[in-house]
């Protein structure tokens, strides 16, 4: 396969600076609402601030890939005497927990770095954080070209996995007939 230039987008998280306000969650959910900014709901946000106030834990985590099954084992970190809950740093939307899922449908959420037309200067969470916790960085790398399924295909595949192809097809036909 051919090598192509890939833009790597990174959000550097300086969690020590986080004051726990969750402005990032609010703006993320508003930006991804349909139509844009028509609603707010942090539960729909693709960034979540994992919080244990008295334990001094404020960790903004971005939604990553969907995982069909949970890991065979779980991890638990202790850093500088702070014990973090299981899977705190994990970005997956997975069956083990209720994070990064649409509250109504349960479908997985994933951070898309606010890709938009015209492009945003920076992801919206980075813009909304006034304490410099979230810093946006970009660089280019040479990578192998690969074909990736589109959003729609990913979403439908999940529904096939969950309900089976027959039930999904029946439902789609029924909805289409209702108009």
């Amino acid at each position, binding site marked *: 396969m051919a090598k192509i230039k890939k833009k790597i987008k990174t959000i550097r998280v300086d969690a020590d600076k986080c004051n726990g*306000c969750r402005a990032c969650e*609010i703006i993320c959910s508003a930006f991804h609402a349909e139509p844009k900014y028509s609603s707010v709901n942090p*539960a729909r946000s693709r960034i979540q601030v994992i919080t244990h106030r008295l334990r001094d834990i404020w960790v903004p985590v971005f939604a990553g890939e969907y995982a069909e099954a949970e890991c065979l084992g779980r991890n638990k970190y202790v850093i500088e005497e702070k014990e973090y809950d299981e899977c705190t740093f994990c970005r997956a939307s997975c069956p083990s927990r209720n994070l990064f899922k649409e509250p109504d449908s349960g479908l997985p959420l994933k951070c898309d770095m606010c890709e938009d037309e015209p492009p945003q200067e920076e992801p919206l969470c980075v813009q909304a954080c006034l304490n410099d916790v979230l810093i946006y960085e970009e660089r280019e790398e040479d990578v192998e070209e690969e074909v990736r399924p589109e959003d729609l295909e990913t979403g439908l595949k999940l529904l096939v996995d969950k309900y089976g192809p027959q039930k999904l097809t029946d439902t789609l036909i029924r909805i289409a007939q209702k108009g």
Partner: protein
Amino acid sequence: MRYAETGFNLEIDLSSGNIEKIETDPKLTELHLGGLGTSVKIHWDRVPPEVKAFDPENLLIFSSALLVGTPAYSCNRTIVSCVSPQTDLLCYPMMGGFWSAELKYAGYDKVILRNKSPKPVYIWINNDKVEIRDAAHLKGKGAVETQELIREELNEPKAQVAAIGLAGENRCFTASIEQSRSSASRGGAGAVMGDKGVKAIAVRGTKDVYLARGAEFMEHMKEVKAYIKFRNENPLKDVMTILAGIGSPQEMLHTDEKWHVESFAWGNARERRKNFWTKEIEESWIRSQLSAVKRLISCFNCPQQCGALINFGDTQRYMMKCFSKLTYGMAAYVDNLDFSWKICQRAFEYGVDSFSTPQILAFAVELYEAGILTDKDFAGCPSDKEGRFFWLLDRLVRREGIGDILADGTYWAARKIGKGAEKYDHNTIKKHEQMNIKLGMMDPLYYLMFSTNEKISITQIEGNWPQVPFATKEAREDFVKDWPQLPDEKFKQYLLNWEPRGEYANPYYPTPEIASEIVDWMEALHNIDDALGFCAGMASFCLKPPYHLHNYPKLVSAATGMDLDENGLRKIAGRSRNLHRAFNNRRGMTRADEKPPEDHWKHRFPEIEENLLTTYYKFKGWSYDGIPTKEKLQELDLGYVAEDLEKRGILKDGQN
């Protein structure tokens, strides 16, 4: 579809356990916005003047507010309201934290509690599922501790919990409701919650809050954001550090406390210690604060850092609320800041107001020193200043011995104790303990705010106008240069004319007419904040704030779809204020109650003060007795209030 608000209240009858989700009338939003505005309307409609604080019919309302849950920075207030056991008037302590937004996301604007639960309970609101749960195992637990216990029990780390401690359970008149890094403290709402048998309300919400014109709303927020950044990078000149920035006073960030500790009064609001802030004290306080503050934190959707996670020695961790850092230490005359971190932890777990409580403890110490309280009352009390305060606090929240009397606050305690104790209750207004300030020269603006406001707590009334005149003409000219928050350009001249000494100084200037205009503006700002849910620290309480009369109507219009302009907004604020006042008038409040503590200023001017009050009443459209006139009420679409007041003989012929 309802915008910005959810359009639903949760009505809970604690005696029957009946829970209902009630759709609200959108017309009420147009008339009162939300938050305090719509809550006052509910109290007026449903709580007749005969109802006392601990009667089952006293409603306890936990309200979110109109713009909470939207992307507006620093909009996160929960407004708790009820008839206060201390003042017998409508109190409305507010808290920041995270509870209010969570309630909106759960699909409710307010939780309205009525009657009493036969056994201790807590309420668990999880979107559409609402339960009243047994709280027998939480009885006696700390207010901070309870929040964690409930989150664990529900296995819901994202639940936000507002809880009372021992003080609320024991109906202490200064009991607070604690939540995250904030609390609703003033006026004893925690006591009413305890009286109703409710230990806590936990809430988790995962629903949408809608914006009518979201993109437009975000355009307005861009300007607000830019101004927040600008103000954070450019503190104001010629004012104290603590007043130079935005947000609540950044008490956890700043270590320079010279102004507070030397200008405010120590003990039972008695004595200014003008040379307290020595090099040695400064160094020891900085060391203490830096060792105690683990991290600076904020409330929901707020970029500021007014609070902190405190981890001091062996003390259980908790979150500090700004001025509490100083109130206990100063009241106890303890010079070591370490004491503050320790006693605040205990006080927050007990759930008591950090303004009133230290004063009550200092009041008890004074009475003991004066021989009015005796060794018998203090049997078992340690003799050192720190130990004495801990001991008194423990007695107060348990209502043990002398604590049972002190738990009602200085006004009621003084009258129960008698033997001249009344003289020591010298810092209350309408029976409520005030900030520990004692000053020299009567100040017209503060005279009006202290005397007349429904809040009965000065820090929640003042704000946009500087506390004292600038020393030089240059400083005044500099300050007015960039002041877009003003309601009218003429206010600039008022400030330019205002001097530290002479005929354009206190007590003669601002004149009663000008003072009325300035106070009316500042009060309106607070009423607007409390209806919309904004932290006063980013609006009504601070100098040159990001939110003001000129951008609020734009934000409200874009969020709700209503077309609101500045006049419309001020009219709503006036409506809310007059309805609140009428509620209190109906309970007997009148001109005779409208006065600051007698010794608040050393130099008093009875004639000027009388004139100030009369002028201000006239300006507000109130009678000589401070009752809104029929004409005023009708102008504000409150004709039904005028009728009620007339029927009760509170508004008499000739007063309209």
